[in-house]
């Protein structure tokens, strides 16, 4: 059984979506995340085990390799695609409550900024590590973050920015969130953002890469 879960983890790590997928070339013709997840469910493996011992293991490896500059955006997107293909099979178990999420993470690219590659990578990694992600999209204003925080009690929130000109909006948004939900935990990230900037604006967490954020979130619910 654990061999099957290891194979699923491997499919996520290397971005093998399904049998027909040509990528990666060295896994051509083999079953992918799609077939193996279905097979595991058919064999009676619980959805929770498939998630935690298969999918999350693969996604964590991708996150670490991305941090260490061993893989880059294209490879991570292929892994995310394999992950979301597998998740389709697990969706009913999330809805029924059989699979438990670690918590909720709200994310958006801040007001004035339309870039979404970084935000999407973070969303995929966080979701791939067992969190429910509420993606507010790009150009998100303070009141939209606040409304989402009120709708999803106890959620964590992440602000993304690619531009130096828009990262300054993070301060305004962080203040608005803290005013409305004083216990809120606000994480910030994006190419120009640094930990000293995070301190300056009074946010709670900064991570230079998606896996760092995952580790922060996991530490908050451990």
């Amino acid at each position, binding site marked *: 059984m654990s061999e099957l879960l290891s194979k699923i983890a491997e499919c996520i790590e290397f*971005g093998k979506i399904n049998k027909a997928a040509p990528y990666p070339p060295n896994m051509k013709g083999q079953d992918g995340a799609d077939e193996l997840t279905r097979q595991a469910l058919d064999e009676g493996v619980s959805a929770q085990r498939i998630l935690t011992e298969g999918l999350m293991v693969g996604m964590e490896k991708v996150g670490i390799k991305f941090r260490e500059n061993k893989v*880059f955006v294209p490879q991570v997107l292929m892994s995310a695609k394999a992950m979301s293909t597998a998740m389709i099979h697990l969706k009913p178990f999330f809805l029924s409550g059989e699979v438990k999420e670690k918590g909720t993470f709200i994310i958006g690219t801040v007001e004035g900024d339309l870039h979404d590659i970084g935000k999407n990578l973070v969303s995929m990694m966080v979701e791939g590590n067992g969190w429910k992600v509420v993606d507010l999209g790009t150009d998100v204003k303070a009141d939209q973050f606040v409304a989402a925080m009120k709708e999803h009690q106890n959620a964590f929130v992440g602000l993304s920015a690619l531009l*130096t000109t828009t*990262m300054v909006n993070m301060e305004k948004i962080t203040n608005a969130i803290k005013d409305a939900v004083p216990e809120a935990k606000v994480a910030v990230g994006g190419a120009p953002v640094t930990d000293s900037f995070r301190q300056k604006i009074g946010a709670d967490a900064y991570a230079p890469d998606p896996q760092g954020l995952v580790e922060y979130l996991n530490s908050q619910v451990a």
Partner: protein
Amino acid sequence: MNGLELIKKAFALQEVERVPWVPFVGVHGGFLTGVDASTYLKSADEIVKGISKSVEEYNPDGIPVVFDLQVEAEVLGCELRWSETGPPAVVSHPLSEDKKISDLEIPGVGDGRIAVCLDATKQLREKYPDLALYGLITGPFTLALHLLGTDIFMKLFEAPEEVNEVMDFCTAVGQKMAEYYLDAGCDVIAMVDPMTSQIDPETFETFVTPFVSRIFEFVREQGKLSSFFVCGHAQQNIEAICNCRPDNVSIDENIPLDFVKEIALEKGISFGGNLKLTVMLLMGTPDDCREHALECLDLGGKTGFILAPGCDLPCETPPENLKAVTGLVHDPYQQDVVRTLEKAERIHFNW
């Protein structure tokens, strides 16, 4: 020796008496003259005013005419969202919607804002014959991403032939833009391809190298100079970038300058960068900027190095910070003082 000669000397890897300085003024030019980014980037006259003010304030050896990587994309049908404080952003990707690559045509000299950029180039050429004018073109991979959207990353693996076809077209666009800028009077063609920072060396060599090399070869055949600007964290690709044979590589703040220096000089090309845009130029004090610029000057050395920001200057960069860098670059005595004295003592000089 004037700025253009100094830049040429640095590109030729000859030792210079003073490191050349090229502030990457984009929409910051409009900030200096009091117009918003959108107005600035749509008007040749505003661009000329902004660059003229920059020349007056920052005494550069070279300067980009326009720093906007959306000019070609807009002509090719990408919808833009304009901003008052930054370059526009692409919000639609024609090749991921209803268009095919065969529907697209190489932009003409008078299309869209290309005419604005070329008009500004001609005016600036006439006004500043001794200044190195950089014509910035959108690198093929970044332009391909504008056209295809982020699907391009997965298509690298799932539809490589389609990516190659789009890259081939974007390279033809780049070559044409280079030709237009050179005809209008530019001295250096800077191909700006920031999205290449997001891929690994093998993917770079497969999907980028064969195409961008053609643009650099074209510029060389015209007897002009070329540079590869790569904004963002692209350390993994520096060697591959140098192997594309630009005359110069200009890097962002995330890459150590000494790392690039070693590789570039070994490959026989010049290099530039990499003043920190946010923490120093935008948010730092003039003292911080002077100190930081000196670190870059000392690391870069006087052979083959051009001092420049890591990427396009943020609109509201305080001019006094850039003037502090300018003052330092042009004054060896000030460099000695900054190198020697403690920060606290420098305050007495009231710089």
